[in-house]
């Protein structure tokens, strides 16, 4: 009797995997359906992909999303890297600091989004890309922070001691030893922050000004207006990008442990 095998867990697991992935498969399949009514399968085609490529609203939204995700995730990763280095060793107040850094993870996003809206409007900060970059940077920090911290925790302090022992000062030690060893964690953190920002809908929904719609916000309003094959196509593209980036970050996180 194998103690680790429990009856029916395998069957349930397979069912759960199906539950998780069938919607994705269905969506992808429909995005290749030539028929406009989207329920009647005619034949496979790339028409809708071609069409989203030439849709100016989608182009603009895509551009906004990319600019936003790039700016927010670079800022968040830099800030998170500094914070991770600072919280590496124990100090009084470390656990409080960590809780504050992880605050965006536990707070309901809609509450934070409307609160930020409230703050920006009452301070007279105009909504749009700048406002979104600020807000996204804040909630991306823990997504970048956690993989970097995990990497740092797995990094024995004796590498840095060895570097100092071999006459590297603090800065040289950071450049020649800490940073190269930390790099996969930094990249994993950056990727996760990027995906998080790219996929975000709620915060952007409340903070996007006129002309600064992001892709998820565009998709939401398009769905509200009625299901179209273009939505299927652009949604499929979004899914694929996330899957690729997350897989990348997963492998980076496991690199040379």
């Amino acid at each position: 009797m194998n103690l680790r095998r429990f009856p029916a867990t395998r069957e349930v697991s397979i069912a759960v995997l199906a539950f998780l992935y069938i919607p994705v498969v269905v969506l992808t399949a429909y995005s290749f359906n030539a028929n406009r009514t989207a329920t009647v399968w005619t034949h496979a085609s790339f028409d809708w992909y071609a069409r989203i490529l030439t849709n100016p609203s989608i182009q603009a939204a895509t551009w906004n999303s990319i600019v936003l995700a790039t700016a927010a995730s670079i800022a968040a990763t830099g800030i998170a890297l500094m914070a991770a280095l600072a919280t590496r060793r124990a100090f009084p107040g470390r656990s409080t600091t960590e809780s504050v850094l992880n605050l965006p993870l536990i707070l309901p996003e809609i509450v934070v989004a409307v609160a930020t809206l409230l703050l920006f409007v009452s301070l007279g900060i105009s909504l749009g890309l700048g406002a979104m970059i600020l807000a996204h940077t804040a909630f991306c920090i823990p997504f970048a922070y956690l993989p970097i911290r995990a990497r740092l925790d797995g990094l024995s302090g004796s590498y840095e001691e060895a570097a100092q022992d071999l006459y590297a000062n603090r800065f040289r030690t950071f450049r020649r030893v800490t940073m190269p060893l930390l790099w996969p964690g930094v990249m994993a953190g950056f990727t996760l922050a990027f995906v998080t920002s790219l996929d975000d809908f709620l915060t952007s929904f409340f903070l996007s000004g006129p002309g600064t719609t992001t892709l998820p916000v565009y998709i939401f309003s398009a769905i509200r207006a009625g299901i179209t094959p273009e939505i299927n196509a652009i949604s499929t593209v979004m899914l694929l990008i996330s899957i690729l980036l997350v897989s990348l970050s997963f492998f980076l996180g496991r690199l040379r442990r």
Partner: protein
Amino acid sequence: MTSSATVRRGLLLLPALAIILLLIGLPLGLMGWVSLLQKGGSSGVDWSAPPSIGNYLRLVWEEDFDGTMILNPTYLVIFLRSVAQAAVTTFLCLCLGLPVALWMAGLSKTGRNVMLLLITIPFWTNLLVRNYAWLIILREDGWTARAVNAVWPFGPVQLLYNDVAVAIGLTYSFLPFMILPLYSVFEKFDWRLIEAAHDLGATRRRALKRVVLPLVMPGIVAGSLLVFIPCLGAFVTPALLGGGKTAMLGNVIQAQFGSARNWPFGAAVSVVLLAIMLVVMTAMALWRNRRAAA
């Protein structure tokens, strides 16, 4: 610890703490204040209004035309529905997540890594898009609806825009939040303890109940918290899959900050949502402390 190290640490932490406190802490504080004000002005808030708890009272009572306060069940119902939906979703996630986590933990290292990736991917993909996929599957003229209606004996059913569709969507959205903490517990689980239980005369069922369950409890609690809290504040799923009559707290907040344009009232609903969250988390923390002390 020398003081120069303390200064260096402070400087390194400054940007992160400043951003989070200014862009999350400060807005939440401001929202608490605004929830006591009245709507008005161009920005939606009458800043000169005297603070009052009127918005909170409005959640339960409304003023009748002759000035008496009568019970208004609208928001109470939404509040109860949100809690019920969150609870049901948590329960469903637990029922599905436990077997999956248990099964994953028994796999080879490669198998575990593959499963971990497969479970993690939906966690990171676009919530909106994933709920939209369910919209396609469940919609009226879709093949799922037709198949269900072909076998359903009691007249035509609508799969979309009801509580069931929302429960499916929420479970789908938050299932990974349950599986991952459960898995991390099972991964570290010492399976020889079960052997020991068997050796001491426990049957399989008793071993599960007396040995596995108590040790896995922290994972169950963590996972439940991670599912329950975002469910409570869900907006996208009820907005896409729920109908007009199945709104949750998140929809109320969005409506008040959007079309209804009553920001102070929306702020009050948000504060209530935060308060529930705080109560749940405090209860969990107390439970954890008691457990640690025991």
